[in-house]
């Protein structure tokens, strides 16, 4: 147990050090720290998974040397973060929008109730199914077992002789699990459970803290309560699938773009946003679609809103952050998994012209959205009613909010066309994957809704 905690702490500290070096510096460190900490959970696990895979490729499975190398990297990153923190003074005093004390206390109480309920549900799901659900032991943890137990034969995971599923899927989750098992010297299910827990609750933490910084504490508390009260989000998180980690990276990317717009000093925030988008690509193939949609939205909205030069200035740090994970994905795809089972151009034009396929997908999405998340009441009408009753604001998240919305909308369109053009049985694919794809976009959608909606205090005038 102690080794598991140490392995996760090292990953977290690496993430925190990187975030500290690149941190969005518009406040003193203290009010930013909770957000940086939650962002660092995913960042650290992602970066350590990159290093684990690179180590495996270059040096093979040497546990002690690997742990020493990670400790060394952490020491260097820590020293850089410390020097950076000493050199840079804060630019502004923390100005958190005021929230009426009684509002805040009641909402904080509701949040704590939702948090405790979510933690209880997560622990019960994990007790009933410690190895996760079908895709966890059928794909993600299975690959982790090959990476950890395979020793010098770890490449067998990509063997075409077996029936390994989704050989082209990137390795963030599997490598993270295998990395923890390497520390523990055991393939205990506690490691994937802990990783799933961290991603699930860190997503809620990012939502809470980012909205608290950008809008108000009450806004953050309501948004995080809504997320944590969504049964399917917790079920999928505890199932140890890659969809919740992917949702974490989508959310973090959009949050960081909005933080950059809040006070655009330095390029660190954009580099962090790029790194998060890159880690999304390293998590699942859907991450690549998200990245393309992000770059297209960023180009169209920034050029139109600010002009070409500011766009160029923003693009460079974004790409710089994106490059390390993207280079690893390119290496992985070229050397281990060039074939993808989800793209089959055979009969593509026929499927595109078949109107009945569009009808099936539209009907499935309509039904899916109405019953999305497993709430007793339907979430989308509730959220729409909430925004209509409180109204929207136009000061915060003007361009970044638009970029986020356009990215999510384009990604959703991409998913739509993947369903329309799939060579797999469409009904089966919709049934098994549509709710999961919705969860990938869900935390980001909640963030954008509460970013653009007025806070209760603003609505009260």
């Amino acid at each position, binding site marked *: 147990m102690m080794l598991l905690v140490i392995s996760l702490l090292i990953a977290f500290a690496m993430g925190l050090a990187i975030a500290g070096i690149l941190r969005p510096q518009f406040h003193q460190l203290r009010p930013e720290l909770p957000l940086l900490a939650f962002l660092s959970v995913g960042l650290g696990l992602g970066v350590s998974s990159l290093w684990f895979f690179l180590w495996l490729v270059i040096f093979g499975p040497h546990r002690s040397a690997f742990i020493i190398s990670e400790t060394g990297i952490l020491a260097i990153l820590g020293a850089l973060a410390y020097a950076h923190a000493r050199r840079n003074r804060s630019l502004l005093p923390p100005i958190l929008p005021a929230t009426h004390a009684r509002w805040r206390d009641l*909402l904080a109480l*509701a949040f704590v*109730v*939702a948090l405790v*309920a*979510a933690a*209880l*549900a997560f622990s*019960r*799901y994990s*007790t*009933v*199914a*410690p*190895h996760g659900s*079908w895709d966890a*032991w*059928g794909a993600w*943890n*299975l690959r982790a*077992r*090959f990476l950890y*137990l*395979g*020793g010098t*034969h*770890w490449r*067998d*995971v990509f*063997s075409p*002789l*077996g*029936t*390994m599923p989704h050989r082209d899927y990137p390795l963030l989750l599997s490598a993270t699990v295998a990395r923890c098992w390497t520390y523990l010297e055991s393939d205990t299910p506690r490691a994937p459970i802990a990783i799933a827990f961290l991603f699930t609750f860190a997503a809620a933490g990012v939502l809470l803290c980012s909205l608290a910084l950008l809008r108000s504490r009450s806004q953050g508390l*309501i948004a995080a*309560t*809504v997320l*944590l*009260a*969504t*049964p399917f989000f*917790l079920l999928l998180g505890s199932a140890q699938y890659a969809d919740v980690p992917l949702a974490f990276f989508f959310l973090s990317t959009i949050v960081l773009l909005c933080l950059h717009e809040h006070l655009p000093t330095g390029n660190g925030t954009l580099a962090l946003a790029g790194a998060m988008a890159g880690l999304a690509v390293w998590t699942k193939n859907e991450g690549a679609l998200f990245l393309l949609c992000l770059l297209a939205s960023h180009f169209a909205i920034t050029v139109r809103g600010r002009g070409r030069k500011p766009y160029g200035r923003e693009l460079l740090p974004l790409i710089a952050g994106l490059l390390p994970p993207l280079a690893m994905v390119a290496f992985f795809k070229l050397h281990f998994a060039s074939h993808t089972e989800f793209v089959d151009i055979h009969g593509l034009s026929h499927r595109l012209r078949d109107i009945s396929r569009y009808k099936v997908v539209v009907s499935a999405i309509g039904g899916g959205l109405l019953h999305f998340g*497993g*709430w*007793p*009441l339907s979430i989308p009408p*509730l*959220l729409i*009613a*909430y925004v209509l*009753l*409180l109204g929207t604001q136009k000061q915060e998240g003007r361009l970044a909010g638009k970029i986020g919305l356009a990215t999510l909308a384009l990604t959703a369109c991409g998913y739509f066309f993947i369903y329309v053009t799939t060579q797999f049985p469409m009904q089966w694919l919709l049934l098994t994957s549509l709710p999961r794809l919705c969860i990938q976009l869900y935390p980001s959608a909640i963030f954008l809704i509460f970013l653009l909606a007025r806070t*209760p205090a603003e*609505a*009260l*005038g």
Partner: protein
Amino acid sequence: MTCFHSALAVRLRVISAVILLVGAALFSSYGLVKGTNSSSHRRGSDEVTAYEARFAPARQVLPQYGIVCYVPDYTSSDAAKKDFFLARYALAPLVVRNVPDCDPLIGDFPDGAPASFLSGGQYLVLRDLGHGVLLLKRNGP
């Protein structure tokens, strides 16, 4: 007076919106805890752990790495497919091949091997590993 009424209406609107959303969320949280509570009682020990225990003797006699073939045909039913996936997880890092064209083979029959399979003469049972798991070899070339 009008101003007072308008302020009251705004206040009521905002408070009802927050109560509606947060109340629905808390109701959902209550349902979540209640639902997981009953599901915990409904289900026993998990199937993956049970499968790992079934395949523990097989892991001891099989090589640590390499390829092992698997029977029966996993495409025959959804249950057979699940059995195959569970066996693949339990035997990792062995590459489990779903075509019976190599030796050794693992026969996975959770309900016991059917007599027709054993009397078919296609495979030679090298060892009965218990719980419906057989170590097999192909008969003939």
